[in-house]
């Protein structure tokens, strides 16, 4: 068996998802090639080559891959797909965007968002927003899958794998990049952070989210939000943790002023330790929290910051 993993990156940095996918792929077994498609992305390729378990890194470095447009990336992946038994990408907005195109062009099903690997053809994935867990078996010749990276540990660093250059250029001409408004933050990304502190509707407004900053600084945490806080306009949507936002599983998740709607729980219930701070002692979040603190967050947050 031979596995192709699509590297998650932004042309400068290899994202944490990739090492987790490599670890997931090692559970299937076989050679593991990592494809880095981007522009001026040599540093990403170096980083991918240094992860334990990687057989080869394939680099397609061209302006047509700079924004990882689905039309171009899928054409590239399909061209090099022959011989691979499995093609994996992280279930990020990048992977979710191009992978179904790969599957359709290969005339196979895609298995989305897998959280466990039972064997080379049998996989586990959440359905109904995580309220049910499906085990599925694929008889397709190539298994095209997206992987929920937070469900897997990261592969460690190893000796450097060889890096090979791909020269295939695919510019489908169907789409073009216009612009991006990316959130610039010194903090870790939500999906990579080992500690997350999230605010909900109880924060009352966007300004009050500043109360989370000091705590996040002390813990090296990312700051998230519930859908209620996003819908109320307190913070942008890219901070949303939940079924319709980001799925996270940090070592420590601190939910502040979040009642615990099912859709939020679906995004964070696999965290190792959950702390809930809420003034309503009946809030559903306390039913899944390891440590619950009932009280006014406006009193508790400054106290917590001082105590850390």
């Amino acid at each position, binding site marked *: 068996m031979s596995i192709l993993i699509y590297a998650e990156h932004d042309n400068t940095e290899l994202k944490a998802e990739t090492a987790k996918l490599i670890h997931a792929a090692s559970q299937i077994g076989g050679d593991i090639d990592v494809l880095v498609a981007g522009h001026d992305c040599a540093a990403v390729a170096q980083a991918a080559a240094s992860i334990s378990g990687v057989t080869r890194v394939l680099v397609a470095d061209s302006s047509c891959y700079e924004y990882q447009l689905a039309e171009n990336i899928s054409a590239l992946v399909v061209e090099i797909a022959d011989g691979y038994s499995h093609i994996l990408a992280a279930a990020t907005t990048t992977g979710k965007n191009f992978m179904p195109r790969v599957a359709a062009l290969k005339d*196979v*099903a895609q298995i989305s968002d897998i959280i466990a690997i039972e064997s080379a053809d049998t996989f586990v994935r959440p359905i*109904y927003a995580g309220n049910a867990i499906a*085990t599925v078996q694929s008889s397709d010749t190539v298994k095209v899958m997206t992987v929920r990276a937070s469900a897997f540990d990261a592969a460690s660093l190893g000796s450097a794998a060889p890096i090979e250059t791909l020269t295939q250029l695919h510019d489908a001409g169907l*789409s073009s990049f216009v*612009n*991006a408004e990316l959130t610039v933050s010194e903090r870790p990304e939500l999906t990579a952070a080992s500690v997350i502190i999230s605010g909900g509707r109880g924060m009352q407004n966007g300004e009050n989210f500043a109360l989370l900053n000091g705590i996040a600084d002390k*813990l090296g945490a990312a700051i998230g939000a519930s859908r209620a806080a996003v819908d109320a306009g307190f913070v942008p949507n890219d901070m949303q943790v939940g079924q319709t936002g980001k799925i996270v599983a940090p070592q420590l998740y601190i939910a502040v002023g979040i009642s615990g709607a099912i859709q939020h729980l679906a995004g964070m219930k696999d965290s190792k330790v959950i702390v809930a701070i809420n003034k309503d002692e009946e809030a559903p979040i306390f039913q899944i929290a390891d440590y619950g*603190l009932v009280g006014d967050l406006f009193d508790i947050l400054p106290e917590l910051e001082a105590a850390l």
Partner: protein
Amino acid sequence: MKILVPVKRAIDYNVKVKVKADESNVDLANVKMSINPFCEIAVEEAIRLKESGIASEIVVVSIGTLACVEQIRTALALGADRGIHIQTDADLDSLQIAKLLQTVVVKESPDLVILGKQAIDSDNNQTGQMLAALTNMGQGTFASKVAVADGQVAVTREIDGGLQTVSLTLPAIVTTDLRLNEPRYASLPNIMKAKRKPVETIDAESLGVNLTSNVKLLKVSAPAQRSGGVKVADVAELVAKLKTEAKVIS
């Protein structure tokens, strides 16, 4: 401009789903079904494009059992012009759905296809992208803004790090994210009027698409339940527990 909107009949988003005792699947007997919420957003976006004079006709298509006609009628009551029901009792995967939709695209030649980004039952997030690949169209997935002008559609997409805008040459595929719009409710007169709008029924078997999936559902189980822990009295106790018991901070 003609817009095609595929809609899926799915469990209503307010229903708490239960797994069958024999773990063969979830139990959908006597459960309320609705238009998948993301598909409803797609219908709304098409209607807004029609109201702004950009679109002239909205065709809504649904694939599945006879019951799907209910969701087509709902879309017609919201403002779609006519419906196509591709009838099948088979349990289809996204690839088969995309292939059936491809036949509709070939026949109808829409300028824009708007779909929900995923269904809240299977959570696959595949059909729009697969349809785009099969029809060789550009795609704007997870849209929070759609602007049509001069044979192009600019789609602002919700991506992990923020927003990205891409420009696609029409015809193109758009899939909707939650914040694209807030769907309207159908008025009673429009519900009555929708009953007279045309709905064409096509037998899925007649479309020359292989409807068998290579993915077998082996088991559906309930997720592991997380049990609640303890309430702590104050911040000092919380910090102490996190340091010494959970050992997640130092």
